[in-house]
């Protein structure tokens, strides 16, 4: 399968760099938030924030459980803490603290998890994170956000900081350079899907790094006369059930694509949301119940079918157009 548009035509920007730039910018706008890290200041790109606001950055050492509890204690005392870590550790090492200290205590702590999915592909299963969405979205009240490029990372962080809730917010982030395609003017509304392409022949649902792949696949499908709707579900929880049910009514088939285990992630959330309404066939593209091999992230994703070419092939197959 060939794509109508080459990814190489798109600019790239490092997610880590964007994260650091956004926090620095927000630091100047608001003085009510503090940042915590577990010896990942440089690795998560927040050294500039630390240099500008040394009194607002706390390095807890390599101790994520304590960091998360400390964040909850700060939040219980009126602060807005942002945890800056890797998804594998933010979401798994300190999951009980996220559940109890933050969610059960009813406080807003922003938990960010970089290097999620396969974005640190060469790190192997210790540093890859394929379960974090499943775990985080099962915690009562927890908001789960998965932005799709540097533009949306910026908008997502701003929206999360301003969001007036007393629940924790988990933000799943990549690591290195990713293709940038979102419109900087696109508002980021927590809980609201973004329709990136219109169409009634098929719906492609994606989040994170898979959104650009879904868009590229949709553009290629258009050349075959297939109009695919593309929904960017940057919010896994609370899920935009209305947009999904509308898509289920208006399009005969659906493919959900995510850089996460097929167990418990976006695909599972979509199936849960649509189980009780009529819908056509739904196919999921994600990571099977395996520990993936190591490899550079983009190549590794493609090797596992997490790419526009596979979405295109699956779409044609699903619609009987092979």
């Amino acid at each position, binding site marked *: 399968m060939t794509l109508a548009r080459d990814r190489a035509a798109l600019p790239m920007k490092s997610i880590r760099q964007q994260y650091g730039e956004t926090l620095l910018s927000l630091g100047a706008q608001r003085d009510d938030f*503090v940042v915590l890290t577990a010896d990942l200041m440089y690795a998560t790109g927040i050294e500039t924030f630390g240099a500008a606001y040394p*009194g607002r950055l*706390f390095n*807890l*050492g390599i*101790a994520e*459980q*304590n*960091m*998360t*509890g*400390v*964040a*909850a*204690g*700060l*939040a*219980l*005392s*009126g*602060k807005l*803490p942002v945890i800056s870590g890797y998804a594998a550790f933010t979401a798994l090492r300190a999951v*009980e*603290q996220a559940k*109890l*200290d933050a969610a*059960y*205590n*009813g406080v807003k702590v922003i938990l960010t998890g970089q290097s999620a999915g396969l974005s640190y592909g060469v790190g192997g299963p210790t540093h890859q994170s394929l379960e974090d969405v499943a775990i985080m979205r099962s915690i009562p009240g927890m908001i789960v956000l998965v932005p799709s490029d540097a533009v949306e990372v910026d908008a997502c962080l701003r929206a999360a900081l301003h969001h007036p809730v007393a629940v924790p917010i988990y933000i799943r982030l990549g690591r290195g350079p990713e293709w940038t395609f979102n419109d900087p003017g696109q508002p980021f509304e927590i809980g609201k899907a973004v329709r990136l392409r219109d169409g009634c022949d098929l719906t492609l649902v994606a989040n994170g790094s898979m959104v650009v792949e879904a868009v590229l696949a949709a553009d290629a499908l258009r050349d075959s006369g297939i109009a695919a709707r593309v929904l960017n579900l940057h919010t896994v929880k609370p899920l935009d059930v209305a947009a999904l049910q509308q898509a289920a009514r208006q399009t005969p088939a659906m493919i959900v694509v995510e850089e996460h285990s097929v167990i418990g992630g976006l695909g599972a959330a979509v199936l849960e949301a649509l189980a009780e309404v009529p819908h056509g066939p739904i196919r999921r593209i994600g990571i099977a119940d395996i520990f993936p091999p190591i490899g550079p992230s983009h190549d590794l994703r493609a090797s596992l079918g997490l790419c526009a070419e596979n979405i295109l092939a699956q779409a044609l197959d699903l619609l009987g157009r092979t």
Partner: protein
Amino acid sequence: MALTFQPLSGEALVDMARLNRIDTARMFMAAGNGHFGSCFSCADIVTVLYFATMRLNPSKPDWSDRDRFLLSKGHAAPTLYSALIRRGFIPEDWIAEYETHVGSRLMTHPSRRYQAGVDASLGSLGHGLSIGVGMALAARLDDRDYQTYVLMGDGEIHEGSVWEAAMSAAKFGLGTLVGIVDNNGLCVDGRTDEVMPLGALVDKWQSFGWEVSRVDGHDLGALQQVLAPRRGKGQTRPRMVIADTVKGKGVSFMEDVRSWHSDAISEAQFALALAELGAVP
């Protein structure tokens, strides 16, 4: 209330600790069982905090300048509930509904969702000290002098997160943070030092950078001294109080008996316990 409350001392404080144990026993009788041993070992500590040392305002439970108390050994919640009832945070008639029905406002572990005056919902062990570090950090950021007291069990400090928190409190120089270990020597499964040896507790906390004192955890006068607030900026190290206690203290047949960590109680045992505690029938 905060300004008019007269801290208790001497016999009045001793009597309040006795009433605390009676309230606790009544809650457990309502439920039919409870963590007697765990509650009675820390009843004196909690009584000193709530009736002699802490700065509180029961009419404003969320008052920013209140001293904080985190019951990290959350299974001793009835001890805290009694203090909250007798300081006027929550109504006395809640005692009868402890663990009795769906929607009971008093349950095995404290929850700020349901009980005014609870500073953090706790129960899973090893969480309180980290939350306390966060609260003490916030005090410093806001230039407030409230104290944050964190009560842990000796078995609880088997949890690794406690030692992560211990390091961070020393690193940040949190002089308003006071940790207390209710050192009753018993876990659920036996002697704490047999289940997992803790070694030299005082040396351990000192080597983690804490100022450590060791007291008889049932000597109310000694507890008053070591738990007194230090609000001056001169205190730059977190403080740890190792309180040597007896599990089940106050009821002879429960004292230092492993099974009374948590057990069912009969009517006869309940009557005997109340008699030993001097409850008016």
